[in-house]
């Protein structure tokens, strides 16, 4: 009996080793585009164009020159656009998480006709492409002075509410009522019940929604492009598109340095909390 079990196991080991080797190879190929950007960010403009895949040699290696050049390419400081991106992402994500979780709790626990209609409109908004509202939304943003990095989070809260409300409401409905009732009997008002009892229970969904929203906010191009005053405020995606799309010919070495600077922070953050991110994405998708 035991021999019969061990024999095929050994065979599978060889198979799984082969599979592992194959995966290592595929992973290396998968990483190449990012590595290529990193390598090219240390080469001269001409070398990026002619020998894209070559490693820098003594002639083409320029050290950190490209990074210095890239910092001010296009007469707009790169660090400023990075700061705007960071500010908009953090504030919008915070606002979305706080406001929509409160709204979801209200929807689930009150479930009046009005709340239910609001919920369905939120679900409906998830299938509406941005192009449908882009012209009118940027008009509205201008009219209400929501066209600065300090106020654009309100637009993001509005346009990003659909998914977040949908996910939070689904989760709140799965929470046991008894805990909140117990809190109410013990004298907690709705505000304390929400912040001290419900919010801690929402944490896993917070992480899922937070990750999805941050991934969207950080990389979003068209919404800030249309709503913000482009000469004053640029986010990283706007900056990259501006350099390549409308600024004219740009030094490719410096451009590669900018691209590398814009993806490096995300990759570092990702490597530190990849477990949460992957778990959060999986959980979020299964719930949706």
């Amino acid at each position, binding site marked *: 009996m035991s021999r019969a079990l061990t024999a095929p196991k050994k065979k599978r080991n060889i198979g799984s080793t082969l599979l592992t080797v194959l995966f290592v190879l595929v992973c290396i190929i998968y990483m190449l585009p990012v590595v290529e950007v990193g390598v090219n960010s240390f080469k001269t403009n001409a070398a990026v164009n002619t020998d894209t895949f070559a490693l820098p040699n003594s002639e083409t290696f320029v050290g950190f020159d490209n990074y210095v050049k890239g910092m001010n390419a296009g007469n707009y400081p790169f660090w400023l656009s990075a700061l705007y991106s960071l500010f908009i992402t953090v504030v919008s994500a915070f606002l979305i998480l706080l406001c929509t979780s409160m*709204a979801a709790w209200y929807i689930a626990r009150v479930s009046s006709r009005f709340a239910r209609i609001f919920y369905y409109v939120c679900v409906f908004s998830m299938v509406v492409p*941005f192009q449908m509202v882009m012209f009118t939304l940027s008009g509205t943003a201008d009219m209400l002075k929501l066209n600065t990095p300090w106020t654009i989070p309100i637009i993001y809260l509005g346009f990003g509410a659909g998914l977040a409300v949908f996910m939070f409401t*689904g989760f709140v409905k799965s929470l046991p009522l008894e805990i909140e009732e117990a809190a109410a009997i013990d004298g907690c008002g*709705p505000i304390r019940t929400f912040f001290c009892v419900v919010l801690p229970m929402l944490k896993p969904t917070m992480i899922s929604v937070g990750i999805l929203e941050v991934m969207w906010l950080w990389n979003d191009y068209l919404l800030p492009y249309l709503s913000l005053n482009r000469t004053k405020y640029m986010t990283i995606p706007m900056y990259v598109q501006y350099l390549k799309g409308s600024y004219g010919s740009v030094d490719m070495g410096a451009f590669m340095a900018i691209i590398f600077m814009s993806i490096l922070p995300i990759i570092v953050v990702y490597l530190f909390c990849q477990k949460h991110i992957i778990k959060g994405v999986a959980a979020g998708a299964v719930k949706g």
Partner: protein
Amino acid sequence: MKKRKIKGITDRNAVNSRLLRRPIQRCFPLFLLPTLAAFCIGFVYPFLQGLYLSFCNFLTTRDATWVGLANYVKAFSDPSFLRAFWFTSLFALVSIVVINLFAFVLAYALTQKIKGSNLFRTVFFMPNLIGGIVLGYIWSTIFDAILQNYGKQLATDATLGFWGLVILVAWQQIGYMMIIYIAGLQAVPEELNEAAKIDGAGRWQTLWHVTIPNVMPSITICLFLTLTNSFKLFDQNLALTGGAPIRTLADGSQLKLTEMLALNIKSTFDINQNWHGVAQAKAVVFFVLVAVLALSQLYFTRKKEVQQ
């Protein structure tokens, strides 16, 4: 089990209680109002206004004059819109198949207890975090570097542009879908696989008759996400080819050969003010198309899900 999710809110007895309802309702300004107000500003009002403006001629949102269905007639007779429609549909079809096939195969292999599967998962998911604009420029440098050996350019060949876009989007999204498939595969009860084995089912039979029916919820989600993502694709399209190559038609208008619907709407807005109404009408058509496709896909694949 999933079907109940959306309908769940009507199940009132389970989700609210008298003890909580009134006090929460009294806090309406704090709990619901901020989201409601922002939602009206950021979605409801622009949506309704957009719907109205698609029947108007306008320069800004203030000076609209009613023209009825003229914008829609103009939109449907615009060759660039029809070209974008076919390009987008073909692209969606190819990318949905490619992404889901590779994602499922990877997920299936990575759930077979191989060493380092966590590391592989991390690597495959990584491209997802990079935004579409940056991705487009990374890949356009790579493609042009490869193609210059053959004396070609991405911007001068629509077929190359098409496949370039497919490779880019596959590279970006395979990891994401793989994660969802892995979650689905791990949720299949081990007993089912063992039962199949005892009944004498081979690996393929188990995969086809046990595993796939049980991961249908994941397949539904992944098909939904890939379908809507490919139809709504904008950033990647703009950065990789920007619609190039451009062909000039007999009437002097320009036809961008690798332009997708979302980009076509944006560039129609940019032609000049006479085209604003047409662009908005195109956007409404685009919205209806995406909504109908997404909802009918959900309806058809939900029917195939195993009831547990």
